[in-house]
């Protein structure tokens, strides 16, 4: 069964975007963690498609790594570390931007990134993978940034960071298909460690200050 | 003109210059005596003889000196510095003859500088004896002198613009050649210079030379601690300064009867000297008369009068340029 490449690519990019919206729409820690798992699986799948199309084994390895680390290791890690954190810190009760509005803004950001990429890179000679995945990756980047901006709870901002990382990973893979495995491993390790550290810090913060609310944390500012 | 001109002329020139200074030094107390006599007469008193200052100087000359043990060598040396500076200044000014042989070494700015040096040391002497009177005199003199300087400089400016340069021999020569200059700039300069002279020589309304009340004395306060020969030197230098400044006024602004150069022979020179003497005597009579007409001004009104002098010279300068 020969599925045309372009349709596969379109499908995967749509799946990525939908999964991102899925993350944005969740209110709770548990919710977005599962959405994130889903997104990572889709991401691994897209990477596998690129790998299949180009035939480079490194990208296969990258896909497997992505699957393992992002879909399995990181969620497990996060769950374990934040076990003792109280539930009220995990539910985004009062975000700066309401969930519905964030969804609309995310859609706008997607449009923006598509527009920007097409305008700027219209002259560059890009292959079909880059053309499909670059706009997606830029929108992932912006949506992740936006999620970090709009969440009030410190823990929920970690998801924004992870989405950004996903976007960057996709960006590099799509643009330079022969990306060195080492770099990819490096980026992943960096993210892993980063997540661990932020989770630990958040744990400590909740223990010391008893609050993850950004507004009360703001009083720590040196005035 | 350099210090040593050609041949025997140079000796004649230097001799005349030296003689001039000796004459200045000798006649100065007479001028003070004349002024006092005039003041006395206008006040319906007989007054002392015009030679009284000479008697006072010789009296002081042979008296003991009492020196305060709070004071230092500055106090002891000040009268000598004052005398030295004043006589040296007199050397550069053409008083009785229309030239000074030392013009190549210094001009009117040097004269002002030397007189300022004398004043500097007098002011220091006032503080040195650690008496409150000295401090009074010095602080008042500080204020007055700081305002007299710009007036003096501006008057020199006006004169130098009109008569050319700051070299006193050429200035006096130019004045003699052009006669009395009835130009607005010179007239304003004359007014300013007259006021400045009143301030510099310590006459009313700036300072009363005959008083020893702390309310009214400026110069007297600074030299209050002096006695004997030092006091004689100071008084004599003060009179010398007075004569020299009045002669400058006469020679620059009212140069009638002054020969235009030195090579005119002894008789015209002698006549010129007498003319200067007469003019200076007349001006001192005028000064004395002015003194009897005004009272001593309150100290803080004195800057107003000095500002009048400065403004007058400023107007003179503007008139010259426009």
């Amino acid at each position, binding site marked *: 069964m020969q599925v045309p490449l372009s349709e596969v690519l379109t499908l995967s990019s749509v799946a990525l975007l939908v999964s991102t919206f899925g993350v944005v729409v969740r209110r709770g820690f548990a919710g977005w963690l599962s959405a994130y798992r889903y997104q990572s699986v889709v991401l691994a799948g897209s990477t596998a498609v690129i790998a299949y199309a180009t035939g480079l084994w490194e990208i296969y390895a990258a896909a497997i790594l992505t699957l393992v680390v992002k879909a399995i290791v990181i969620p497990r890690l996060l769950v374990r570390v934040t076990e003792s954190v109280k539930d009220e810190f995990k539910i985004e009760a009062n975000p700066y931007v309401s969930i519905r509005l964030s969804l609309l803004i995310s859609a706008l950001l997607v449009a923006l990134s598509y527009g920007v990429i097409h305008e700027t890179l219209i002259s560059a000679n890009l292959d079909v993978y880059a053309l499909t995945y670059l706009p997606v990756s830029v929108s992932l980047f912006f949506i992740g940034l936006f999620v970090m901006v709009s969440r009030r709870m410190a823990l929920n901002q970690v998801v924004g960071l992870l989405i950004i990382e996903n976007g960057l990973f996709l960006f590099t893979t799509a643009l330079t298909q022969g990306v060195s495995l080492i770099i990819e491993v490096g980026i992943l390790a960096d993210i892993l460690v980063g997540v661990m550290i932020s989770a630990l810090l958040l744990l400590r913060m909740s223990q010391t200050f008893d609050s993850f609310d950004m507004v009360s944390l703001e009083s720590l500012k040196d005035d | 003109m350099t210090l040593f001109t050609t041949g025997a002329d140079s000796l004649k020139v230097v001799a005349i210059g030296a003689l001039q200074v000796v004459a200045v030094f000798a006649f100065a107390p007479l001028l003070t005596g004349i002024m006092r006599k005039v003041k006395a007469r206008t006040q319906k008193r007989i007054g002392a003889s015009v030679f009284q200052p000479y008697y006072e100087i010789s009296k002081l000359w042979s008296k003991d000196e009492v020196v305060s043990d*709070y004071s230092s060598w500055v106090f002891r040396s000040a009268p000598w510095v004052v005398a030295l500076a004043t006589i040296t200044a007199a050397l550069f000014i053409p008083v009785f003859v229309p030239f000074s042989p030392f013009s190549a070494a210094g001009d009117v700015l040097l004269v002002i500088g030397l007189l300022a040096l004398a004043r500097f040391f007098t002011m220091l002497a006032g503080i040195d004896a650690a008496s409150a009177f000295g401090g009074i005199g010095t602080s008042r003199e500080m204020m007055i002198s700081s305002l007299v300087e710009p007036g003096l400089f501006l008057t020199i400016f006006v004169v130098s613009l009109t008569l*050319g340069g700051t070299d006193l021999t050429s200035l006096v020569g130019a004045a003699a050649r052009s006669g009395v200059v009835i130009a607005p700039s010179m007239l304003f300069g004359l007014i300013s210079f007259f006021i400045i002279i009143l301030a510099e020589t310590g006459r009313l309304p700036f300072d009363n030379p005959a008083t020893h009340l702390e309310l009214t004395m400026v110069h007297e306060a600074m030299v209050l601690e002096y006695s004997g020969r030092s006091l004689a030197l100071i008084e004599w230098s003060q009179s010398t300064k007075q004569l020299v400044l009045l002669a400058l006024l006469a020679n620059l602004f009212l140069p009638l009867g002054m020969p235009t150069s030195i090579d005119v022979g002894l008789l015209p020179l002698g006549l010129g000297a007498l003319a200067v003497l007469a003019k200076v005597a007349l001006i001192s009579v005028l000064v004395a008369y002015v003194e009897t007409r005004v009272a001593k001004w309150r100290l803080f009104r004195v800057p107003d009068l000095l500002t009048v002098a400065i403004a007058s010279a400023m107007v003179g300068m503007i008139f010259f340029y426009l």
Partner: protein
Amino acid sequence: MNFLPMLLPAIVALFIAGALLPLAFRDPRREAVASFVPAAASSLLTVALSASVLLSGSALRLSSPVVEAIPSMSLSFYVDGIGAFFMLIIGLVSTSVSIYSLGYSGAYSGKHSIRALGSLLNLFVLSMILVTATNNVFSFLLFWELMSLASFLLVVYEHEKETNLRSGITYLVMTHIGTALITAAFLVLYFQTGSLSFDSFRSAAGQLSSFTKGLVFVLALAGFGTKAGLVPMHIWLPEAHPSAPSNVSALMSGVMLKVGIYGLVRVTLGFVVPSSPGDAWMGLLMVVTGSFSALVGVLYASVEHDIKRALAYHSVENIGIIVLGLGLSVVFMSFGLQSLAALALLASMYHSLNHAVFKGLLFMGAGSVLMRTGTADMNRMGGLVKKMPWTALFFLVGSIAIAGLPPLNGFVSEWLTMQALLSSYQVPNVVLQLSIGFASIAFALTLGLASATFVKLFGISFLSRPRSKAAEEAIEAPKSMLAGMTLAGSLCVVLGVLPFVATSAVASAFGFDIGLVSSYAPFGPLTVGYAANGLRSVSSLSMPQVLVITGAVGAALLGFVTVVGPGRKTVTRRYTTWEGGFGALDERTEYTATSLSQPIRSAFRSFFRPHTSVKREYYSDSNHLIKRSVSVTSETREVFEDHLYSPALRAVVAVLDRVRRLQTGRINSYLLYIMVATISLLLLVVLQP
């Protein structure tokens, strides 16, 4: 001389040795010797270097590329006449100060680190010398900044006093404002010529548009004026100079200010060459700023009772006089009056040299007094002329010099400046003539006030009776300090009596014919010609002849006094001062510094705006007739600080407070800023045609 090229590296090496050696020792005396002896030696070498450049009339060029790839970053040195002249100033003063510091550092032993003082001083002097020797913008700014930082560290040397820290910060801020303006000026020149080297600036001088010239000039005047202490950028001077140790104050006041003047001279005469009447406004601006500066400086000096603050304000005054002369020179140059331009430039540069020497001397004297009495407040001094006779003598020499009285050096440069002012009738523009006339009023007022102030400074500090225990118990300063002061004092005398030394140095430095202003003979007079309206005359001043004449008069006077002796043998009795019969005088009846300057403060009250506040304390609130204490405070405030800087600072702080709201402390807002910035940039790229 073929060891000439080795002098500059030798100087650098010696100073660096002086900076590093004291770090090796532990004993304060050895530290002092290890730092100040190399400094003195190196300063002497500097004098030698500058003298040889001036005497030979040829410039010295050295270069040591730091980074080969970037030619503008090389350290290229070019010691021409102008640089050599200022190097001479630096060398002379720092020699005296280094010798002086050997003894002065004893005041700090045990309390502060002498190593720091010594090494910073070496770095400071070295950076100043190198500033005058550099030839491109990079090295100039490098050494300029080094100079500012070294002096800042020295200003806050006694950091336990809160006021010192505050003055240090003020100084740091002001000097950086100045540096920013200077950099801007150099950048304008760079954009015009495309190179950072001074040589290219010099060669491009003729082709600059008058707008560029004006812009560069104004920026340079403001920037270098800040370093030199021109009003209104002077506010750091009266704070920083008194806070620093006295040997540093001597260097800052005597030498660092001149480095600012060097920059101004370099830019104005070398890069922005005034050559047409359209450039005369630059000179006029300098004349006005200079005379205003002089007047403001001396007025504030006259009411100060802290001896170092008064001296600092006097530096403001003298810099004003220097800039006034420089401005006159520019005005004359614009009209092509070469001999008058030479005269004014000679006056200005001579005064720079003089001021460096006598201000250094005065600060050294103040330092000795401070060291021995522990106070800089004149109202607590007195009678020191008997306890510290040599210091008093040197301070008197310095006072007579700065008051511009003959026969010392101040009189000569003042004579030259006055002659330059009087020669302004030759400028064919009435507005300029009148403005210069008004500037002369300010100048004369300055001179009058200056001698009054120094009567107060010398009189209250040294004469009359001691006003405090510390003054009573003072002793003479150590010999090394006296040696340093002797050097500076003798320079004052030499420069006054033999003007030939300085005039030929200046003429050689700036490349004009000495015959325009002075005769070629060593004992010859300074001459200025007058020619207008059919009148011709030559004003001349010959200090050696004046000295001879004075000597003759003195001899005659002595002879007269001896011959016409008193009729009887007189005795000089010593007794107390006359006190009106009240009995022994207390030292509280003497005049104080404040009371001595009270008539001046009152006469100029519209400038000073003194206010007096009276505070009364009562024993009980119901009865106001019986007072416990009455205290009267009378103060004059600095008008520039109140009306210029404080409002400006308040406005800046208010604006910054609003900007502060952007710093919310919340990570969300910071990320929002990043996001907005990124999106905007992308849109910018996209929407750009």
